[in-house]
């Protein structure tokens, strides 16, 4: 089945190529040419890139949750295991559509709180509260939502788990995470 599909695609590509050559030689309209070109994966991607850029009005870079986490780690003077566990939890939040309603800085502080709690430290330090300007009670609400989403994530979505099971990340994916 796989071989057949692959061959079929190759044949299709060939046909497109000859089509294109035919169009060039007979100098058909440019629109048609673009249409056929758009069937190629490269051209599709470039077209999609153009669409995305236009839709977002070229406003691409954003303060992401990762940047907030980096700041919290710096302020908290966190050790390696907290950094790894918090990154693992924060990566997990990307999978959830429901968690989009929380702003990135809240998600990052929740990841920090969960990681600190799991490693037996006081969940929310004074330094973090000062920097993030969120009190512990606020962050706990978000942290509970994050943990609830983590539990309900479909079991076949294992990329984040795989990533953080590697020794580079200290195998933090297997850490037991208690409720907050």
């Amino acid at each position, binding site marked *: *089945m*796989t071989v057949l*599909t*692959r061959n079929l*695609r190759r044949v299709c590509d060939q046909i497109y190529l000859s089509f294109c050559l035919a169009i060039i030689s007979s100098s058909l309209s440019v629109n048609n040419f673009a249409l056929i070109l758009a069937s190629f*994966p*490269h051209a*599709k*991607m*470039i077209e*999609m*890139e153009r*669409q*995305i*850029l236009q*839709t*977002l009005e070229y*406003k*691409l*870079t*954003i*303060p*992401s*949750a*990762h*940047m*907030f986490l980096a*700041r919290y780690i*710096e*302020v908290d*003077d966190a050790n390696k295991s907290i950094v790894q566990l918090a*990154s693992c939890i924060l*990566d997990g939040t*990307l*999978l*959830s*559509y*429901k968690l*989009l*309603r929380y*702003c*990135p*800085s809240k998600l990052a502080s929740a990841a920090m709180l969960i990681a600190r709690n799991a490693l037996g430290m006081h969940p929310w330090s004074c*330094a973090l509260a*000062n*920097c993030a*300007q969120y009190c512990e009670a606020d962050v706990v609400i978000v942290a509970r939502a994050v943990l609830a989403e983590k539990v309900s*994530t*479909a079991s076949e*979505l*294992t*990329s*984040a788990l*795989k*990533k953080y099971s590697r020794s580079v990340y200290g195998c933090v994916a297997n850490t037991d995470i208690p409720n907050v």
Partner: protein
Amino acid sequence: MDRDDVGIFLYTGTRAPSDIVNARIDRSITAIPVGAFCDCVALESVELHDGVMTVESNAFNGCCSLRRIVMPSDNVFDGRSFMLSVDSSKKSLEIQQWLDSIRSKIEHHTAERNKLLREAARINCCASIEEENDIPFVIQESNRSNESASTMNSSPCSHTQDKMDDSDPGNCYGEDIYEYFRSKEADSTVTPTATYMDGQPYINVSMRSILVDWLIEVHMKFKLEPATLYLNVNIVDRYLAKATVKVKRSQLQLVGVTALFLASKYEDIYPPELKDMVYICDSAHTKSEASV
């Protein structure tokens, strides 16, 4: 808020109009809030009274004509209160003397002074003043600074700044960068209710999860920066929320991989090439088709 007979504007709490020339702070005011005299370009003189305990950051931002500040001795100022307020050419003798007096106070407390200078490095707008070897507009009365840090909360991360290494100038911007990001994050995320999926009939929540899961895997394979992944997912979400076209199920992967392509160009030093992206899409396609 009123102008009295001699043309002095009496500040009573609301934001000052931009055309005032002389201002006096009402006795009822104990703290001048953020932006109180912001961009009062004509403002030449301000008279504080000894009840004014705090001048918040950017209170006198952009007051380019300000020449004279009458103030009692033990007020507490935030480092950014007078940011951009005086440029060196217009600086009058009075301000010069004022600065000198503050400098002499500060020199008695070397440790405090170091802290202030570090603070001053954050305010690069004061560079012209630093050139003249003045102490920039960072006035935090040394004898009060300990209690002010704890009671007035004027610098929320003061204790972390103490920890910072003087040799790394990048560190001192951290707090400002954080504040800027916080002010920006509301615009840069999808709507707080996150209901864009309702406007996209061909895709659903679990497809988004599968896509993100696949993107994490690709991201890991290409060994990209962590920031790329977050930007990537954000671009996908914002595109799906804003796009006028309805994204078809078969197109979702294309959106995802193109967002990855864009994000890696922004965040990575060596972004993957277009052909690598096409390759990774292609193999995933055949794999998913085979599994169906």
